[in-house]
């Protein structure tokens, strides 16, 4: 799928989540900003974790060596 395509998917999910949260609980500008901050933080955390694990496996220096009897 590629790194950039999946990152784009994360971005889209974030945007959709932000819109969804704005539509379902619209409670004044400061509260909306809080919700937006939470959504952005969550998406960034999720993306970072995925990206780190993905990049680590991109050009591996060691490969799985199976156990005997597998």
């Amino acid at each position: 799928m590629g790194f950039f395509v999946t990152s784009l998917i994360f971005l889209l999910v974030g945007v959709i989540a932000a819109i969804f949260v704005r539509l379902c609980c619209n409670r004044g500008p400061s509260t909306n900003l809080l919700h937006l901050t939470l959504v952005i933080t969550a998406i960034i955390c999720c993306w970072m974790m995925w990206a780190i694990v993905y990049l680590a496996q991109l050009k591996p220096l060691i490969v799985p060596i199976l156990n005997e009897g597998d």
Partner: protein
Amino acid sequence: MSSDGNRSDAGGWCCPPMDLMRSEPMQLVQVIIPVESSRVAVSYLGDLGLLQFKDLNKDKTPFQRTYANQIKRCGEMARRLRFFKDQMAKAGISSSTLPDVVETPSDFDDLEVKLGELEAELTEINANNEKLQITYNELLEYILVLRKAGEFFFTAQNSAVTHQKIEEHRTADGSIETPLLAQDMLNDSKQINLGFVSGLVPKGKSIAFERILFRATRGNMFLKQSSIEDLVTNPVSGEKVAKNVFVVFYSGERAKAKILKICEVFGANLYPFTEDLEKQKKMSEEISGKIKELKITIDLGLARRDKLLKNISYQFEQWNNLARKEKAVYHTLNMFSYDVTKKCLVAEGWSPIFASAQIKNVLLKAKVDSNSQIGSIFQVLTTKESPPTYFQTNKFTTAFQDIVDAYGVAKYQEANPGVYTIITFPFLFAVMFGDWGHGICLLIATLYFVLKENKLSTQKLGDITEMIFGGRYVILMMALSSIYTGFIYNEFFSVPFEIFGKSAYACADVSCSDATTQGLVKVRPTYPFGVDPEWHGSRTELPFLNSLKMKLSILLGVAQMNLGIMMSYFNGSFFKNSLNIWYQFVPQMIFLNSLFGYLSLLIIMKWCTGSKADLYHIMIYMFLSPTDDLDENQLFNGQKSLQLVLLSLALISVPWMLFPKPLLLKKQHEERHQGQAYAMLQTTDSNTIQIEQDQTFNDHEEFEFSEIFVHQLIHTIEFVLGAVSNTASYLRLWALSLAHSELSSVFYEKVLILAWGYNNYAILAIGFIVFLCATIGVLLVMETLSAFLHALRLHWVEFQNKFYEGDGYKFAPFSFVSIPNEED
């Protein structure tokens, strides 16, 4: 520290306002309430719960305060209510509210009178019942005495008659063996000297009783005892004791006196008894009748008491609440200062600015409801005191805010780490807990609490359940995050799945001959989401995962620490503290990122290029010999010169953090002082006012340069050393994650799979139960607590020490909701 640059109360505009980011702006208000509406006003303010009163009578003892008497009355009411509660508990009636009891909460004085009446009535009923009960028990004992003693006399009489017949057959003279009684019955003249008493004595004391009677009367007595099988209720104490019926015969008045005294000492109850059979029968019948009557009377008495208690129980909660509210109101009224001349009370307190309108409305309502002529006055005072911190949290954010407050309550209006904690805390927990099977278990457990929260919030839960219930939304977030990281680590009870596509690795050739020596080869693109399932169970799994998780921890740690330093920028710009921004925020950012930001960059570059460079080597030799050539450790062109630049940036940022700020603070302080010195020469009115203001300002602030400098030195050392130690501290994310996955894998392989291998249902069942217990006990409870604790530590120390001061105090408004129930 109060001399931290300019501090203005109105915040700067660097960013639009965000809920929960900064505590609510507060103001010190003064309310002047006329006496007649004071009680009602305070009661309504308690319902509103947005005003924290200051105690204006701090130097007075509780007895010197204005409303000490009322509080005594409230205490008396509370005592009566406790008495009712005890009585209800003894009678087994619980306080319930009958839905159609519409009696409105009565006035304070009415309630007091009513409670007094009820108490008197209840005590009277209880006393009467007790008396009746004692009489009842005595009568029961009497019946026993009649029965048993009657048996003695009957058997004695029979044996006397038989003996006499034998004697008559044997000799004509009397012999010593003729029973006394028989002689008594025949010989009337000798009856005068012999008497007897009958009664009951506790079984345990009967032997001692007999011995002492024997000694006291020098053997001139005859005691016959017979035990009763059932336990008898002791009339005075009401407890059931094993007793013996006894009859003791004596001769003479002195012996009688001694025996009576001894009976008293041993707690033996005496009952009159006649030898005459007829009279005995009559007494028995009489007493049986009396017993029946008494039972009915007692039952009626108890029924009446129960009815009274039931009536009380319907309104008990209401009265209880009313009494507590009144007591709280009077305690609060005691904090106001009483102005005798103007017949009003002056109250001072902190309240949020947004609550001004609500408070004014409440005061108006109080004026109307208490039929007062004068309204209350509400005015805002200016002060230099630091206001309390108030965050408006809902049921979701309260738990996270409590987590932050447990370390330290935020200073008034400083940036609240709680905002980010809502997301990062469950996320860091999940990094250490990552297993989507365990995450689902946690989710199910916490959904129970969340879905039933309405019912559970009114119940009284145990201590631990209370804690879990309070943190249900935190655990919910933790569970959802764990499911996500479980998919990333690809562990379902330590078993990987190929959910997101085919694994990237396959055998090098069709025969898979060197799969166990050289290993597999990467034939397809990288596994799209998470860790490739082929890694699990391979020999190189640990080296790979260790390297991955360590680097993951470092990257996440550097990200969170950067966020922390950014928060200090937000604080600096909000409080318009440019010193903090230029001489603390900027050098801190430069130092952290030129070292550990660079390390993060190296990690990512190594992954992207697949280079074999040794990152430890690069970092260490960047310091030890920065000018050496990099050779095989080169990741990109110009790396050597970049490293030199970063190293020098890091080196100059240290004195940049240390020296300018104290020197500039000193200069600012001197400027203020100089202004004052010049103003003394001029005597125009405006300047004298200026002098007063400056003087008051300077009175609060003494400037000790050495103190400021040492403070800055400590701050700098803490940051510089902390940069290394905090970054290493994030490696606990790796350590706990490794522990979790190893434990999980051991339980799976060595318990479940082992049991499966035996092909025996019984062993499989046992194995499954052991697996279940181990998973729940070790992984779901212990590991959850452990990861929770470590995620908490990472937030409290590594994240918050970059920006958080946390030396504020929490807003504690006067509110009826928060009054603890003292009886519980």
